[in-house]
């Protein structure tokens, strides 16, 4: 089954890349962009067929490797 993990910076962690994107959008004439935060998306294809088990495994993957939980949040979506 397919799954998707979104990783975003925690609130309060300064995101210089987001700031640079925000600045570039302003340069292109997109007004009113009040904040930009950059994250990453990881798409996985799992052999597991039980969505609950897949979600538990994904959570462990996030805690152990995919996210740095000191500075990042993650959200898991099992797409089926």
């Amino acid at each position: 089954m397919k799954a998707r993990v979104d990783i975003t910076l925690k609130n309060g962690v300064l995101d210089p890349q987001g700031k640079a994107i925000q600045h570039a959008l302003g340069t292109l004439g997109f007004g009113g962009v009040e904040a930009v935060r950059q994250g990453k998306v990881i798409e996985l294809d799992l052999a597991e067929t039980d969505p609950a088990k897949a979600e538990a495994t994904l959570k462990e993957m996030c805690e152990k490797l995919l996210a740095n939980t000191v500075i990042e949040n993650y959200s898991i979506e099992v797409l089926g």
Partner: protein
Amino acid sequence: MKSAVIVFPGSNCDRDLAIGLERASGRPAEMVWHKEASLPEGLDVVALPGGFSFGDYLRCGAIAARMPIMQAVVDFANKGGHVIGVCNGFQVLIESGLLPGALMRNSNLKFVCKDVELITTTANSPFTNTLQKGQRLTVPVAHHDGNYIADSDLLFKLQSEDRIAFRYADNPNGSVDNIAGILSENRRVLGMMPHPERLNDPALGGNDGSHIFESLVKGLMVPA
């Protein structure tokens, strides 16, 4: 002093680090490939080199920190072993949980590659005991992700426990409190972004970096 340098795919300061350790101790460092599951017997120091392990994929140091040898390095540190991580090695130490905080993209988003002035912030460590508090060293930095982040609780802890080893005189990357290197709680693990092994020979412009290796030899008080 018996030392080992861990080598990951993409490490590029491993040989310089080995020379730094060898010059100070008079004994060649063992090079240990990351796929090994154990360290050589009887080590005093493990060194994690700079470079771009695993292409900096996912997060700098993240993949390297999960390689088999790192469990052995964590066990070694937890038993009181001395570990130094430079640049990418510092990132690996943080990703492996041996040092707290995080290293993020430099605040100006630029790769910074130049000599910087460091201020020795504590002489009370096995890595800085031949230096004086406040002593300035010139050491190169070369990194894109050296912006040290700590929340206010952690920063207070590092400050009050005298665990900031070095500060930048002129902050090149946005690190909180100008932090260039930190120590573990037991003071035996040092992570630093600047490269002492790259300024360790007068022919290359100076040898300020040698103090750190000489401190280790003195601090361990073991025969070469």
